[in-house]
């Protein structure tokens, strides 16, 4: 059996398993086992991928499976992975594993909660293995829809408003995306023949330039909305603020990465001509995202808002690096996706745990948490240091690779935007240290907080998994970097043909 099928089958079996359970203890146990298996499978996948490559299989995509799905439109269930998708799958399984443990004690309707969560994860897994535009879009929608329920039902604060806003904006993105995908589809056979959704097939032909120019912005912005591209990022602060912990983790950690992944796998890979022509517009927008998000974060007082703006900044860097279109920068972009995914999941997990104890997310109402919950506080400091790019943690590797890559363009425009993007490392330090200083250090501001307890075992499982991953990438980045690098070639060839 094909290993990729497991990424769809395991979640489905887990959901069936959850339906059979009677109480919340069984539910969480089944979810944990399911996601644990998923994590193991993805590690096995990495080894299998390496084994296959070492055995001399240099196909662009490995483990491909192709089923005809809808004959008349030539829609296939076509899956396959390269190094980049393998890395993204590993990220998804780590985050969803940690997410289950972070929501161990969900009180209301635990069964429904875990089912929605796992459906969401399934959508993401499906997206990363798809090589057919239609299947990819389908999985994308599978991932977005449960979000509405998860925020609307289990969220906090103005949850109906936020859920609505988030879903509608992402649906707006889907609409643009759909136009873009159909544009690609109807231009996939310029010399006659059968139209196709197959990404690998389409990459071999050249879509007419007029069509590229028209459909590239639809596709790029469509995915960009999910990747928090300025000025389409405003769903992110409200959505994250209201979402329950595990949903924020999965959403910021993984779902936002679908945007970046789609941008290069679909928009740039299939329409390289337009990517070159229009890159400058998006480079400006992403450079704004990077700096604007960072400055936006300085002024916030709600922990989740701070992290949401910080995500805007970090995800902006992903798209920024992709648009630099050279090996180093794109490598950095993908490391940044993974690094940010882990880091932000860690942040949201910790914020959820702190909120669960103090019942506030306002930093000025808290203080001195280091004293009462040292474990969580130390984890928060580590997450903060990763976020501000401390060497030895993943953020540094990603940022440096991006900056070195972006600096390969010697013209003034690229130099200016690159230096602007570099300056975000200072602003990031400002808001991270501000939060750490107010929230964790100093005297305890609220007497009631003296009686709070530190992390429980399942919370430790969740945070340690994420911290270990962040540190692993930070200390031995060469494995991840080389894994990604071997798969960048087709995309770079495609881009450099223009």
């Amino acid at each position: 059996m094909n290993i990729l099928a497991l990424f769809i089958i395991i979640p489905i079996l887990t959901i069936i398993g959850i339906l059979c359970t009677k109480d919340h203890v069984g539910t969480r146990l089944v979810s944990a086992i399911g996601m644990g298996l998923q994590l193991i499978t993805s590690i096995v996948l990495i080894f299998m991928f390496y084994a296959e490559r070492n055995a001399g299989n240099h196909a662009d995509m490995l483990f491909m499976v192709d089923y005809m799905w809808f004959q008349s439109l030539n829609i296939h269930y076509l899956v396959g992975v390269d190094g980049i998708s393998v890395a993204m799958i590993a990220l998804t399984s780590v985050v969803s594993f940690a997410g289950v443990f972070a929501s161990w004690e969900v009180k209301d309707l635990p069964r429904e909660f875990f089912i929605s969560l796992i459906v969401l994860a399934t959508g993401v897994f499906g997206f990363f293995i798809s090589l057919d535009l239609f299947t990819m879009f389908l999985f994308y929608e599978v991932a977005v829809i449960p979000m509405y329920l998860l925020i609307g039902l289990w969220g906090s604060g103005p949850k109906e408003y936020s859920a609505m806003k988030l879903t509608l904006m992402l649906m707006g993105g889907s609409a643009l995306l759909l136009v873009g995908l159909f544009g690609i589809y109807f231009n996939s056979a310029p010399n006659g023949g059968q139209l196709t959704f197959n990404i690998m097939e389409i990459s071999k032909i050249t879509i007419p330039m007029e069509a590229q120019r028209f459909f590239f912005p639809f596709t790029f912005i469509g995915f960009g909305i999910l990747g928090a591209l300025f000025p389409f990022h405003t769903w992110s602060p409200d959505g994250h603020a209201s979402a329950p912990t595990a949903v924020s983790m999965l959403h910021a950690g993984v779902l936002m990465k679908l945007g970046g992944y789609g941008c290069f796998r679909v928009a740039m890979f299939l329409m390289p001509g337009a990517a070159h022509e229009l890159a400058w517009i998006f480079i400006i927008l992403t450079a704004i995202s990077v700096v604007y998000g960072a400055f936006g974060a300085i002024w916030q007082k709600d922990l989740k808002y701070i992290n949401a703006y910080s995500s805007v900044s970090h995800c902006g860097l992903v798209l920024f690096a992709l648009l630099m279109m050279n090996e180093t920068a794109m490598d950095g972009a993908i490391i940044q996706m993974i690094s940010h995914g882990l880091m932000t999941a860690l942040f949201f997990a910790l914020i959820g745990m702190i909120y669960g104890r103090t019942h506030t997310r306002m930093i000025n109402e808290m203080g001195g948490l280091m004293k009462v919950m040292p474990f969580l506080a130390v984890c928060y400091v580590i997450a903060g240091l990763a976020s501000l790019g401390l060497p030895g943690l993943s953020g540094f590797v990603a940022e440096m690779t991006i900056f070195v890559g972006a600096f390969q363009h010697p013209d003034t425009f690229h130099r200016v935007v690159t230096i602007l993007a570099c300056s975000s490392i200072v602003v990031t330090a400002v808001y991270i240290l501000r939060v750490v200083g107010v929230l964790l250090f100093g005297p305890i501001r609220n007497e009631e907080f003296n009686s709070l307890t530190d992390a429980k075992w399942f919370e430790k499982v969740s945070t340690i998994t994420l911290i270990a991953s962040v540190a692993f990438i930070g200390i031995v980045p060469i494995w991840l970097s080389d894994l990604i690098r071997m798969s960048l070639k087709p995309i770079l060839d495609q881009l450099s043909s223009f």
Partner: protein
Amino acid sequence: MINFSYTIWILIIPIFMFLLLGLLGMKFKPIISGVLGTIGLGVVMLLSYYAAYQYFFQLPRIDDAYQQILAHNITWLNLSASLQIKMGVFIDPISVMMLVVVSTVSFMVHLYSIGYMKGEKGFQRFFAFLSLFTFSMLGLVVATNIFQMYIFWELVGVSSFLLIGFYYERPSAVAASKKAFIVTRFADLGFLVGILLLSYYTKSFDFLNITGPVGIEVTRNLTQTFLGMSVATWALLLIFMGGAGKSAMFPLHIWLPDAMEGPTPVSALIHAATMVVAGVFLVARLFPLYSFAAPDALTVIAYVGGFTSLFAAVIACTQFDIKRVLAFSTLSQIGYMMLALGVSGYGGEKGLGYMASMFHLFTHAMFKALLFLGAGSIIHAVHSNYMNEMGGLRKYLPITHLTFLIACLTIAGLFPLSGFWSKDEILAAAYEHNKLLFMVEYLVAGLTAFYMFRLYFRVFWNKEPHYHHKPHESPLVMTIPLMFLAIASIFAGFLPFSKMITSDRLPFESETNLMVAIPSVAIGLVGILIAFLLYKKDNVRVEKIVKGLGGVYTTIYNKFYIDEVYMFVTKKIIFNLISRPVAWFDRHVVDGFMNGIAGVTVLTSRKIKGAQSGQLQHYAFFFVLGAIAFALIFIYLWQ
């Protein structure tokens, strides 16, 4: 051929100690953590000494020059076809010297801390952080390439942050740690851009390449200019900005005095002897490049160094917190080192400034660590940082008193203590290149002697205040490091530096220039004499002088209001004029626009939903109307 591969243990031991004490420290008794950390560092120190011995005395020289050896070099990350980040151990005269300095001071501080930090909450954490810092600093000095240096540079920064904020319940410590990190981070931005710019042209990060003939040739021949300066000068000035941040050169010096909020052993280790000289080390490391490709940048470095040394010495004369006096003194001394590099040429006797800078770095590490540890011993005894609350301590703290006096005499540059030799070389180098800076340094020498002896007389002589507890001498574990460092301060000056550490790695003969040395000692003595007259006994002369100076004194006392300027820029401009409008813009304009779209949609649907009223007569009416409209269209337009 001597194998230096064992030097990797110099890095492995401290990081292992960090992980051990950081993860399991709470399981041990505090004293065990301290002893473990100290023993680990002791081994590191011995390994460093052994490496230094082998390098300077056993390793054969090639064409009389000391070799540059890559003991280890592994690829850490591939960036592009030509650029890789490597991690390794680079052995050359300055890295070996720095290994000795860092491991010696770090070991002394470890030992001292067992006594000083006794009974503190977080004793284990303190030792874990000290190990982390030592690891980072050692990694920095043995870096084989500029990117490895940057990586460890950042790690050093964060260890400094963690240690300054060690007393995290104290708001002032938290603020100081934040300030230190952000100011140096800002400087590191320059460093990073400088690295990117430089490596874009040299196609390499490796020191062997970029400071070798090829790198120099490439950098020298860069024709691109930006705002009238060559790209090479820009790149090297930006890199110097990083160095200036770490070494607290004006105007990036503001974090260092505040960093004194950290425990005193930390101030001795990080903020006096090792980390703050990283900037000097950086410039020294890239010195061939500066010297050949960007002499303009060297001139800037000389003036920045010279100005900082004067500026800080003036402020040091007015401060009352003994640690702050020492902090400003550190600034001033690092200014000396920078100035020496700035006025130096490359090769042979022209490289006198380079040699002098490294020499002063070495001796300064010893006597400044001694001063800080001595200050720690004083603070330990009287539980205060303020010299107003001290006086007459020579009776109670005999060992501290004696060692402190030695340190004061050393920093004042009296013959034959080590400070005399190294400072003399700097003055001689300045004398040959730049008379203005030379005169400034004479003035600074006098000021240094004055403020150090102001401190000394104020603390150990003068009027005795009423002590709540009778001050007592510190335990042996604290005084042994003092004695060791005092001996080092006395004798370090006799090391033949010009035979060991020179700009082109070739030994040369250096002579003491009596024309420079005698006046400098005389100026030092004058400074001491003035301090003696003013502070030996409690008297009204000081107050009279302060009154006479009026506003000038207040300005100096408030450090020329530079902190206030920074406060204004960060609080008012960055927070209120950038961040706040961005946040507002985001919520009201960008998000408002999105909500507006939603609002319009809702409004439109409200308006047209009337059409679906559910009343039959409406539908019938519209049906007839539509039918008539279609009929008209068909009749008139279709034909």
